[in-house]
């Protein structure tokens, strides 16, 4: 436990020391780490997606709507525990309360999270939080951008966040800690269940975005650049917890065009 805490602290401190940007303009942009490698990796991922993930997502979509909704609710409920940890780490106690309330209601009244009565009771479903976002909230810049095999687009900060997630995700600890198995005495909490849950979450996400990805691939003149832009914008708005639409109106380029 102490060893894990030490590793977590080292990752956090290193990220904050090496990636903190003082320049507000640079806080949300990311230069390329190794573009050639990333472009190659993206091609590999597209091949993998075409051969494996997309067919699985299409198959998943054939399932009746109530089953897909229930599955989505179930994994979202488990995933909310990671959001809760990060709500707390970000000092966003209001959201932490909301997330905890949702989890308590959906796990009990909603039968282990299969149903979502919390939304009907006024507990708003908010966007997911992860440790990469937490580092961003703490002032860490994105570092550079690259594409990971299988996992896709990321930045130095978000890659550090992926590792950090492991330390702050209660579901990971419940499934990977042998002490928990002894206490709970439940075989179902073994490690592979964690990966089933993460895999199901990924398939559910992919199944909802089949057409969007196809449209993006078809209508991009540089798919790699489109994906990079969308990824960085998405991370920016998730860290700020607000859409970027209003801020963009201040873009100096539009000002110049208007004054031409």
């Amino acid at each position: 436990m102490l060893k894990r805490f030490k590793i977590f602290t080292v990752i956090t401190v290193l990220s904050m020391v090496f990636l903190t940007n003082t320049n507000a303009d640079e806080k949300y942009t990311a230069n390329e780490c190794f573009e050639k490698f990333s472009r190659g990796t993206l091609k590999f991922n597209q091949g993998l997606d075409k051969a494996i993930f997309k067919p699985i997502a299409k198959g998943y979509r054939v399932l009746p709507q109530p089953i897909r909704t229930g599955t989505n609710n179930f994994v979202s409920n488990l995933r909310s525990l990671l959001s809760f940890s990060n709500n707390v780490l970000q000092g966003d106690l209001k959201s932490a309360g909301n997330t905890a309330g949702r989890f308590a209601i959906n796990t009990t009244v909603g039968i282990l999270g299969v149903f979502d009565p919390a939304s009907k009771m006024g507990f708003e479903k908010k966007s997911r939080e992860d440790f990469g976002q937490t580092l961003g909230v703490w002032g860490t810049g994105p570092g550079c951008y690259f594409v990971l095999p299988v996992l896709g687009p990321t930045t130095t900060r978000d890659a550090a966040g992926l590792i950090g997630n492991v330390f702050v995700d209660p579901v990971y600890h419940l499934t990977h800690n042998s002490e928990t198995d002894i206490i709970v005495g439940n075989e179902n909490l073994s490690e592979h269940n964690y990966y089933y849950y993460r895999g199901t979450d990924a398939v559910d996400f992919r199944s909802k975005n089949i057409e969007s990805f196809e449209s993006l691939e078809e209508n991009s003149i540089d798919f790699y650049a489109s994906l990079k832009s969308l990824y960085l914008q998405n991370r920016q708005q998730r860290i700020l917890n607000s859409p970027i639409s209003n801020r963009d109106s201040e873009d100096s380029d539009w000002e110049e065009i208007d004054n031409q």
Partner: protein
Amino acid sequence: MKRIFLSFLIFLVGSFLVQTKAISYSSDPESFISEVIDEAKVILSSSSSSEEKADKLSLIALKIVDIKGLAYYTLGKKRKELTPEQLKKYEDLFEKYFLKSFTSRLTDYSDPKISVLSSEVVNNKYTIVKTMLLKTDKKPEVKIDWRVYTKDPDNPLIRDLIIEGLSLARTQKEEFASVLSTNNNDINALFSTLEKFVNK
């Protein structure tokens, strides 16, 4: 002769009235977007072929989107380095690229259900109109914000679509910048990429 003249006059006035109705949109940004959505819905849910739908949607886009402004914005600072001939060529190519990309994205939806939720005046030049593309059996609901340029209050124009918080204009701009940077900042490389896209 008199009857022919009268028929011609009626046809002329009728055509004018039909056309005026077709091209006049409300100056209120929220109503403007509502009207645009309704017009697009009629086209998308019609039994016309994809090509016919694309042609009709293109005609609407030419009236409601600030395509020239978007072309300049998308090119970024590079536009200042172009000769007038290059700029003209770019504007023409961009318009074709934009219309193809725009209509191709839309024709995927045969019967879109979009609700206009609210609007927010950002300043005297911009109003954000918030809408929601309702979920279907296969697709989740999608928030779509329309950034409407209102400098000329009688003639609002769309400058950006922000889908789930992600700006299409910004994505396009970064895409164009990437094409330029991977080709030694050569505008001809961008021209040929756009031509390839338009002709595919």
